[in-house]
């Protein structure tokens, strides 16, 4: 297994280079001039603009700029933000824990609610509860974050909250912001972000469970008189989770990319916000740095997913 992991890690190197090249082309070659976007048009004096351009190597041909960037990257230097003058590595280190909190919390909500709802609706197939779960999950999958986010705010923390029966007894939640790490600030954004994948996970768990439940060995397990609970949890669920695990990996990546919207609606100071702002002013080092980082996470998560198969299904071997 260790050999496999090492081999996979080596394989990421060319992938990362491919990523740097694609992002470079997309950002550097896209129309729009970072120096003009950042430094006060009009009235930026042409000589100053030229000297800023020299400082950032923007006056050189694109291939040269690319190699200069990669050269620095190899030395572990992601450069400095044009706009904030902060090191890109500092920006990532500052934002990463915040986005990670949000994403992990959203994952926890999505998985716990999604898997449980999926199991229930599989076990009670075609029941009333099944119907509710399936309709609910469809809504969850198809609702954009900025809408569901606003709705959550209205229901749980706005002035309207005090007029809704039952819910008005739950204390009002904070509307937006990071709150310096206060957990109450995490609930709504995590729920809004988690909602997207929740329905997906529920549907996946349900169909996978239904497939396994019809297998011969489940019938055998039931025939030898095992309690229904043991049949479901030990024999069915574990096998049913293999396809779900794949989905989880992809879901995590979805959540990361879905984060910019959620972070905007809830004013969460994470990486998504940083990259959106950076794209708008063509703050290229920040765009490059964060995109690379996202790519790295994506690769890493897929590796974990692959490895987790071995745990879920002992038949899968890596050699």
């Amino acid at each position, binding site marked *: 297994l260790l050999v496999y992991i090492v081999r996979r890690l080596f394989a990421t190197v060319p992938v990362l280079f491919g990523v740097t090249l694609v992002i470079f082309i997309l950002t550097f070659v*896209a*129309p*729009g*001039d*970072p120096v*003009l*976007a950042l*430094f*006060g*048009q*009009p*009235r*930026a*004096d*042409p*000589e*100053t*603009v030229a*000297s*800023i351009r020299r*400082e950032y190597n923007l006056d050189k041909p694109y291939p040269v700029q690319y190699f200069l960037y990669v050269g620095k990257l190899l030395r572990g230097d992601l450069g*400095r933000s044009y706009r*904030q*003058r*902060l090191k890109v590595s500092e*920006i990532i280190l*500052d*934002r990463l824990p915040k986005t990670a909190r949000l994403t992990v919390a959203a994952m926890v909500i999505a998985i716990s609610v999604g898997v449980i709802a999926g199991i229930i609706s599989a076990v009670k197939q075609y029941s009333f509860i099944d119907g509710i779960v399936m309709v609910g999950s469809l809504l969850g999958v198809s609702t954009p974050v*900025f809408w569901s986010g*606003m709705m959550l*705010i*209205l229901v749980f*923390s*706005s*002035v309207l909250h005090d007029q809704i029966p039952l819910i008005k007894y739950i204390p*009002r939640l*904070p*509307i*937006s*912001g*990071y709150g310096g790490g206060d957990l109450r600030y995490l609930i709504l954004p995590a729920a809004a972000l988690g909602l997207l994948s929740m329905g997906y996970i529920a549907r996946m768990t349900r169909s996978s469970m239904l497939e396994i439940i019809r297998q011969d060995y489940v019938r055998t397990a039931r025939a030898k008189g095992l309690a229904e609970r043991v049949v479901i949890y030990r024999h069915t669920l574990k096998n049913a989770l293999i396809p779900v695990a794949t989905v989880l990996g992809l879901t995590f990546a979805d959540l990361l990319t879905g984060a910019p919207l959620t972070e*905007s*609606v*809830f*004013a969460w*100071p*994470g990486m998504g*916000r*940083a990259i959106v*702002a950076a794209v*708008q*002013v*063509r703050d290229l080092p920040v765009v490059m740095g964060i995109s690379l980082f996202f790519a790295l996470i994506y690769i890493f998560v897929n590796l974990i997913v692959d490895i987790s198969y071995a745990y879920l299904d002992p038949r899968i071997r890596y050699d």
Partner: protein
Amino acid sequence: LVYTFNIRRGVRFHNGRELKADDFRYSFERVLNPKTKSERVWVFEKIKGAKEFNKGEAMAVSGIEVLDDYTLRLTLEKGFPPFLSVMTYNSANVVPREEVERWGEDFTSHPVGTGPFKFVEWVHDDHVTVEKFDDYWKGRPYLDRIIFRVIPEEATRFEEYKAGNLEHVDIPSGQFMQVKADMVLSKELREWAILGTYYIGFNMTKEPFGGRDWNSENKRKLRQAMNYAIDRDAIINVILEGRGIKAAGVLPPLMPGYNPKLQGYSYDPERARTLLREAGYADGRGLPPITLYHNTSETHRKVMELIQAQLAQIGVRVEVRSMDWAAYLKALDVGEFQMFRLGWIADYPDPENFLTVLLHGRNSGAGGNAAFYNNPVVNQALDRADNTVVWREREAFYRHAEELISRDAPWIPIYHYFSTVLVKPYVKGVKLSAMDTSTNWLVQPLEEIWLDR
């Protein structure tokens, strides 16, 4: 022209050191220093020797002299009345050398000044906190602490305000009428005119509005026809929900030098059609394809579409296209568009900041004159205005220039900006001026704000 400033004694930086005349010299030279690569060199460019210093040809700026600890003398190349206004621009703020040198590039994250509130922390994309500065020269401010929250989504900001978590907020687009009708919110509403103009520019170097013969009778008539075709009231009422003042010329009403008698172009489709015919394009026939550009924004798109519809009424067909801001600026600088929208909000309250910056031939392109309008007679009038000290004479030159500009019609002035905010009733001492915008209280004295609760 020479200005001698007596520096107030006992003004302290937030680090405790007293502000001296030499701090002004240091701060101004820091901006002008070629190593700083500041994009705000223009703020000081009228000072004698500033250009030489900025090019690295001189060791110091000859026009900045520190006579003693409390006396600063600035000598200008030649008379430039807007200078004092320009000195209020925030790039002319004074910074303490020791802090700048201590933090280097990170000084932006550790600002130190002499104001009523000192910097505490900046959590990026979350909030900035400042707290009272006990040694502020006017005495300590009323508020202990101000937190500026960063909330990108306007609907979220609005909910935070309504829930009582913010003292002041801007009004989300499309909600202004609702706010006005609301019993509570309407009492917390403040509206005021600011120094800004929203306009459509014609490219004076490109067909069909400009070119070598931009000054010909036909081209002028075409531009005038387009001006008469626009129903500014409709734009203001329908899209801006009444938040704007119809524009006749370039200068906004509260700007010194504003000419209330300037006629401009009122909505007159008949006259527009006549002029269009006289220009040789009866009912729009014979016009090449025209594209009207705007930078991506929901409001701009709506305004452009209404303008498109109004122009279609006189037979002029334009296509509307958008670009994001970074790409847009670059295209404007090189004069890529035939027709475009732009807005301008004053950097400082002087007509020079509008007329000269936006319409003097010398500022064509990146300088601010995106229309590439270059009329030697106007340029001359503006040059004289910019260098005349007596206000009455200056004003006369500016008015003359604005009238010529209006006749040439390089723009379709649309409206002058209005700002609107909601402020909680217990917040006292709010004095919003034409230099404050809804989200940027630039001139509002923060030390005068207090809470009555």
